[in-house]
């Protein structure tokens, strides 16, 4: 039985992964960061509408997670999902076009910012109802076990979602039935304007797992290394048929909850403290200082991402909106369903 512990959490100074891995992480984090910055800009120009929650500050989780799991594993998360979607392999063009509500978007403009899905990339969304994906991810894992695969389902949710009853029901069944599900709570300190300590006496969210004898631990979410290391270990446990695992990954969102939130409920000092741990900058520094790669190699990545995001904007801008006649598409699989007029 794995202990419910707080992981040592000290970031190792010494690089322990290959150059390729570091550069992959860096590139992915930078892709997400730049994508989200442009998203905010385009929201400001009203090209993107509705609820829009960006991932800035949390990039190390997406990067460290993807390197630790397999393409065949399933991933499901909440509405703060652009970063996870990109990391799962949805390309920036399809993602940006989706935010624009264009027919070329990853779900053809039907979902927008909160609802990316990709069968090919094994990305199950994109859920706008807080906590709903916790039992859904458990069910995806149920199906994997049922079919006898060795795939796992990574089921992600926020600190706010950890207070939904659905979590407790799902955790219990997942343990009882030994399902291959890896739960990840991305604890960014707040659920909208409510800090974690105002939602429960249990502020170490990983401890919830112990009520179900689920192996659980807290992880530093500001570094891709620590995220990768924890996920590798946890996913190995889950994949080997030992049942669920729960990681509380401590992170921070640099922006407000959504585009419309000025985030007045937190202090500037707190924000600055976390900006000091910026995963993109820290990793860049580590790569350079540790002589993992050269400044030129870093610059080449920066240039590549710039081109990629510029291209995504162009692609989204020049794509058409869905035809209004598509309004009834995809409500049913049945093609000739008789809708009421």
């Amino acid at each position, binding site marked *: 039985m794995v202990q419910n512990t707080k992981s040592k959490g000290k970031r190792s100074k010494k690089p322990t992964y290959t150059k390729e891995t570091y550069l992959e992480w860096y590139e992915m984090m930078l892709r997400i960061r730049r994508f989200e910055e442009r998203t905010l800009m385009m929201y400001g120009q009203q090209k993107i509408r509705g609820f829009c929650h960006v991932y800035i500050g949390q990039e190390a989780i997406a990067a460290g997670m993807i390197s630790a799991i397999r393409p065949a594993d399933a991933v499901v998360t909440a509405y703060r999902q652009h970063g996870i979607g990109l990391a799962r392999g949805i390309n920036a063009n399809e993602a940006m076009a989706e935010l624009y509500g264009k027919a070329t978007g990853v779900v053809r403009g039907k979902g927008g910012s909160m609802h990316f899905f990709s069968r090919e990339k094994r990305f199950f969304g994109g859920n706008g109802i807080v906590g709903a994906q916790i039992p859904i991810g458990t069910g995806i894992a149920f199906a994997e076990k049922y079919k006898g695969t060795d795939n796992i389902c990574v089921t992600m949710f926020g600190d706010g979602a950890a207070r939904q009853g659905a979590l407790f029901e799902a955790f219990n069944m997942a343990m009882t039935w030994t399902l291959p599900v890896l739960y990840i709570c991305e604890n960014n300190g707040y659920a909208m*304007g409510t800090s974690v300590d105002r939602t429960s006496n249990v502020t170490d969210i990983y401890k919830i797992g112990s009520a179900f004898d689920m192996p659980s631990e807290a992880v530093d979410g500001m570094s891709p290394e620590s995220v990768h290391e924890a996920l590798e270990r946890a996913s190995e446990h889950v994949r080997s048929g030992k049942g669920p695992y729960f990681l509380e990954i401590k992170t921070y969102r640099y922006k407000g909850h959504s585009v419309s939130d000025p985030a007045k409920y937190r202090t500037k000092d707190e924000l600055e403290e976390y900006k000091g741990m910026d995963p993109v900058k820290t990793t860049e520094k580590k790569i350079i200082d540790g002589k993992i790669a050269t400044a030129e190699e870093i610059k080449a990545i920066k240039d590549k991402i710039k081109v990629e995001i510029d291209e995504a904007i162009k692609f989204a801008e020049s794509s058409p*909106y869905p035809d*209004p006649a598509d309004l*009834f598409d995809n409500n049913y699989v049945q093609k000739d369903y008789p809708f*009421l007029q």
Partner: protein
Amino acid sequence: MSEEMRRDENVFLMGEEVAEYNGAYKVSKGMLDEFGAKRVIDTPISELGFAGIGVGAAMNGLRPIVEFMTWNFAVLAFDQIVNNAAKTNSQSAGEFFCPIVFRGPSGSAGQLAQQHSQTFESWMANVPGLKVVSCIDPYDSKGLIKAAIRDNDPVCMMEAEVMYGHTGEVPEEEYLVPIGKAAVRREGTDVTLVSFNKLMIPLQQAADELAKENISAEVIDLRTIRPLDHETLIRSVQKTNRIIVVDESWPFAGVSAEIAYVIQKHAFDYLDAPVIRLNAADTSLPYAPTLVEAYLPNVEQIVKAAKEVMYVK
């Protein structure tokens, strides 16, 4: 809400972000300062749990106002609303009753996509034991919420996200607007236009358009969905002989379906044309602007329908 909380110390407000954040849509602005944390309570994101806590508190003598950030999230709490709040009185043979208000915005609000764009009046109105109020008129909203808080039965109040900035005369003084009474917003003789909540806006605009063409529309704002004000509807149709129902519910068993039934049952002999209803499209609402545009009934469609029942081009 504040007036009622001053008047009755058993009234309290509970929900996500209602206190320190002053409400996700600033509805409860200043209330924490005035009433303190005992009576203006931030909850975790636990809709089923806090709705149930509201029900228990109501059974035990308090008068909770439970805010849902939107009614889409109240779906998680339907067990407590439908299986408990609505049934406490009946299953306890009146030993207990449940004076609680469940409130929040309902309906689409632009490009919010499938899960955040739903309309719940007809869902809740289907349940015996609940009352359902849905009104965006500022004056009436105040009178209705006060009536709802004082009501001894559970009341579901549907507001509208896009109408929180809507302004109008709201007097400081004390008044109630009775639950179960529709309002005739404009008298007319040729055709009855009826709706509720935010679709009252295109309805009124359609009436203006029709007036330009010398068609006199009577405009009715239901204000309450359950109990439905049959009398006002029937009296109007007896006068105009024509009715168009504009309803953000999905068409199947929507509010408009109930009205159409009531009219054919009680005013059949007065009708000069079939009842026409204009609903939200029979589909989940996607995100893209072109699809949002095609989803709700608009002024043009209402005018067209009115002309259709008038048999004019």
